[in-house]
């Protein structure tokens, strides 16, 4: 097992433990999907807490939810869906061997991710100004003030962990962009682009669930 044969999974189409490049790609894909399963279980714990508390305190959740900015949340949803599109186009470009298009779409995806995080930061700042950050300084007008704090606790943990996944995703895409510029990916070897694409879509999908659960409670009543 020489160092060069081993340390160069990216350059070499095949690492020593695999018989064929196809077997290697199969293994990577299965590994990535399994990783996404663990991610689903990770967020499931949060969704479970959300379910229980919303079922306990529906009025408090509705009242607290009305303090979220649907316009900004909706805008961010659109941004993320667009970023999934550019990610798909990046994967497609890597399969077609179009290096410049690959780099362009990766950068576009990173930018859209950045816009999402920026808008998210603005929203969090609004919560800070309104004293909606859970803890000793929490303040909420209305009959369900205590339980509303639960809603905001979940809101911050869920959107916070989602944002953390976005930051990790942007980091991965940045590495990919540098590698793509150096011409590392070819139509026969583009597994990392494919895998990061799966991850990016997963993170988007989590938001697709978070947005209605957090922002759109009982909107028809007002």
């Amino acid at each position: 097992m020489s160092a060069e044969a081993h340390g160069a999974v990216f350059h070499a189409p095949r690492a020593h433990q695999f018989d064929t490049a196809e077997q290697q790609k199969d293994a990577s894909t299965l590994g990535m999907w399994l990783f996404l399963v663990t991610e689903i279980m990770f967020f499931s714990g949060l969704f479970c807490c959300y379910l229980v508390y919303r079922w306990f305190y529906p009025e408090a959740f509705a009242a607290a939810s009305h303090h979220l900015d649907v316009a900004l949340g909706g805008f961010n949803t659109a941004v993320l869906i667009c970023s999934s599109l550019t990610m798909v186009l990046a994967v497609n470009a890597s399969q077609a061997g179009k290096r410049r298009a690959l780099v362009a779409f990766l950068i576009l995806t990173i930018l859209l991710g950045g816009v999402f995080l920026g808008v998210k930061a603005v929203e969090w700042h609004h919560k800070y100004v309104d004293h909606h950050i859970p803890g000793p300084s929490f303040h909420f007008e209305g009959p369900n003030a205590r339980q509303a704090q639960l809603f905001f606790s979940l809101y911050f943990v869920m959107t916070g962990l989602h944002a953390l996944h976005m930051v990790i995703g942007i980091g991965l895409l940045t590495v990919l962009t540098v590698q793509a510029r150096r011409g590392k990916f070819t139509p026969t070897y583009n597994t990392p682009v494919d895998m990061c694409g799966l991850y990016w879509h997963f993170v988007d999908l989590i938001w697709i669930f978070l947005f209605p659960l957090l922002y759109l409670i009982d909107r028809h009543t007002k």
Partner: protein
Amino acid sequence: MITAPVTVPEREHYLNASYGLKSWLLTKDHKRIALLYLATITFFFFLGGLFAVMIRLELLTPQGDMVQSETYNKLFTMHGVNMVFFFLLPAIPATLGNFLVPLMIGARDLAFPKLNLASWYIFTIGGLFTLYALLSGGVDTGWTFYTPYSTTYSNSFVIATALGIFIAGFSSILTGLNFIVTIHRMRAPGLTWFRLPLFIWSHYAASLIMVLGTPVIAVTIVLLAAERAFHIGIFDPAIGGDPVLFQHLFWFYSHPAVYIMILPAMAVISELVAASARKRVYGYEFVAYASVAIAVFGFLVWGHHMFVSGQSVYAGLVFSVLSYLVAVPSAVKVFNWTATLHKGSIALETPMLYTFGFIGLFTIGGMTGLFVAALGLDVHVHDTYFVVAHFHYIMVGGTIMAYLGGLHFWWPKITGRMYPEILAKLSALVVFIGFNLTFFPQFILGYLGMPRRYHAYPDEFQVLNVMSTAGASILAVGYLLPMCYFIWSLRYGKIAPDNPWGAVGLEWQTLSPPPVENFDEIPIVTHEAYDYVSLPNGSVTPKKEANVR
């Protein structure tokens, strides 16, 4: 016992292919990573054992005279945390599993060698966090971290310990993921699912739990730490949060985690039974499916830890029935191992002694599990030493017995040296006697009503407690002995042949110790596992056949 060192004729294998600290710390060889894990978990085992010694010493007398109650709380917490998260969970999968999964399926390595190394580093970093918590003053919540005590009232290092467990959890996830992908994608030609050794089936089932369960405890710990650090109050009853929800989330992982500990132990026992009886495991398919069934049922029984936590009676009923169901696949395994032994030509070497120990003790542990799964009886024995004895029969009598048996069985393959047989048999006996003397009195103590987690107790419990402490000291000798003679054997042990047991697993068809890429030529599998009838000498692939490929 000191004799002249036995020298090995020079041949390149995974141990002498390269030298130096760097060649170990940067290795991607699953066999070396297994040994890194072995060293790390042995450290945590003896650390956890040290706390056990202090607990048993305190309980020698009815008065709380050795340590204060606060210190005692920290002792049993650190014992539990060390043993559960840093020894029992990785014990068999990360050492024997890591070493043997690729060998048994005829692969050159796991699917993701770098990830494998990363998982060891992650585990070690998690362990360091917990060590930091320990050295700074410890943690006193019990290994279960129940809220609101852990989030609001405890005045100890909860966050550091919890972070350590959180980090170590990722190593478990990565190991499970690596195993699943490897078993799916890396099997040698001809090795179909129903030709796989049962070791692989059980590790597959355990890996499923690692991958599906561990993320849930991870997010629970995040919530716990966030609540403690930022007072955001997800489980805080003061703002409408529900502490029982924490218990649900905690046990959703921590009950299946029991099966992460016991399934790999069953994996080892299946191999040991077949090799020692020189027979195919009776009802191979049923034992294989039983592993998967245990993994599936294991996810549906967590509520039996909460019979007295204010859970609804109907939920309790359902959880009780489901808990009984887990006994079915477990019993299938025990019966089938016993049936395998029937009319086998049993070799009574050390691994088999541990196997007998496992089958007996696991049966007692499992049967008492049925006691505590019964709603009515559980109210009586809940939070008593009966429960403590029950899970130690599973964890120590089951998992550690199998772990030691497996270490003896595969030691010749791992190191290329034999362990001293007579001494090993003696220490197996010491472990068995010490174990029963330690934990059997605890069943009686619990049934008589001695609660767990107290450092003082009424005088009438003293005799049984003295027995338990005496047993613990015997048990300690039983654990120190193998460590000494294993280290001794590295230099002075007899040179091991490639297949000392005449077993048919693929791992025995390669050299001892194996070459860096495991096999000189990847074997082609033409027989089912444990085919001792058509392969009486334990040789799966004659050399010529292997050349076909």
